[in-house]
């Protein structure tokens, strides 16, 4: 199982903060699977500014996700 977290604007668009699923593959493939499983509203994951972190480090779309990973998708940060 992997855990996938969503934050801020994206969390609101998807209506959920967290899902768990069985998955291995790239980040890009994970997005495709989440959209296929959950419907069109999840196209929000393909927003051009959406960032991804795996195990709390920012990664690129071709990065691999493995069993036990914590994945997070989120919009540009606005702290400080």
């Amino acid at each position: 199982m992997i855990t996938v977290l969503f934050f801020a604007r994206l969390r609101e668009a998807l209506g959920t903060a967290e899902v768990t699923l069985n998955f291995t593959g790239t980040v890009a493939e994970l997005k495709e699977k989440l959209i296929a499983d959950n419907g069109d509203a999840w196209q929000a994951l393909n927003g051009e500014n959406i960032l991804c972190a795996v195990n709390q480090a920012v990664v690129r779309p071709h990065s691999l996700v493995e069993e036990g990973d914590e994945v997070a998708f989120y919009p540009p940060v606005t702290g400080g």
Partner: protein
Amino acid sequence: MYAEVSIQEADFDLTTETDALRQLDAGAGAIAQFIGVMRDLNDGDTVLEMELEHYPGMTERCIQEIIDEAGQRWPIMAARVIHRVGRLSPKDKIVFVAVSAPHRHDAFQACEFIMDFLKTHAPFWKKERLSNGESRWVDARSSDDKAMQRWQNPA
């Protein structure tokens, strides 16, 4: 180098924090500090309240990495970062960055570097409640990206 990062809902006390840095090392002649304060206006609208969301765990890790990077670039002795989350009102303190160093220019540089990277890298998100009843997520600013990029090509 000493580093301490706190993410918290509670406010913090500047005297306490600065005294702690001051007591760490009698060789630290310079402390540069930044305090980010909530403004009552954003993009021309009156803001009544703000809700700050973050990614627990990654936030602390990310800020620690930024401090480590600052410690590689400048001879600094200690850094302290506090970032508040949850509900905030105008004039509330949002963020505190303090850096001590033997010399003041290093302290200033490292402090501003940490702020610029925190703004563009640390996973925090602000949602504003406006006086017209609407709520909106704050957009990232290109001015913050530019401030960060400045450090890629040190003068």
